[in-house]
């Protein structure tokens, strides 16, 4: 393969994952937390596909496809929760949704 080796993709994935993780840990809007989660999942997908290329085996791609499906399900539920929160006039702020505090 001419062009960048798999390691370069992994570095991109690592940076992307870190960005997403920061988003999840820092942002207070549930919507953006959800989006950051998607970024983390996509970073993982990138590593899966990169390793699939590395080993010449499609298993990684299959797994990435499964991750996509699960991510879609996750967004559906997450958005459902957010809409339900908004409908009940709850604040859209993950710090204030702390009814489960011990």
């Amino acid at each position: 393969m001419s062009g960048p080796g798999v390691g370069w993709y992994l570095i991109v994935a690592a940076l992307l994952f870190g960005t997403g993780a920061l988003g999840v840990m820092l942002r207070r809007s549930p919507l953006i937390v959800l989006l950051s989660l998607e970024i983390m999942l996509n970073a993982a997908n990138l590593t899966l596909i990169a390793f699939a290329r590395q080993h010449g085996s499609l298993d990684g791609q299959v797994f990435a496809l499964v991750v996509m499906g699960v991510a879609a399900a996750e967004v559906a539920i997450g958005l459902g929760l957010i809409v339900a929160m908004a409908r009940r006039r709850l604040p859209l702020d993950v710090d204030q949704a702390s009814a489960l505090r011990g």
Partner: protein
Amino acid sequence: MAGFLVWVIWFAAAAACLGTGVAVVSFANPFYSALSLIGNLASLAVLYLLLSAEFLAAAQVLVYAGSVMVMFLFVLAYLGGRADAPWAGGPPLLRTAAIVAAVALLVEIVVVLGLAWGDNLSDPAEVTGAFGSPAAIGELLVTDHLLAFEITSIVLLVAAVGGVVLGTTREKEATE
């Protein structure tokens, strides 16, 4: 020549990918964040193409960008101004810890990559043209990974039911 072109495309896609990633996390308005994520997904699709994962690239655009994010934007439009939220805040300790953890994670990944770099990371396996084609992936999906496939479909079904349940307005609420 071709190798140089690939490098150029890779660099552009990777830069776009990281840039949009940072944009997703940093925009105050979730609408822009979502739009940035669409850009992120598109640039990732380009990276997938470079890794000979054509079908996944197309699926990424179709499923993620095409359906999931449309749904996301729909919800954002529905929420309107209520979607706006404070950028950050909370305990400073938490913020510091988050940044430290993220940086530590990055450093670790880079270190691990560096340790593995010399082994074989730079010479990937030879692949044929059928690598990453829908037929090949589909066959794997319903043979070796049938269980994962079925479980995923059940997860999706549960999510669909859950979405309907969450979205249903109960009689009582409707009259309020």
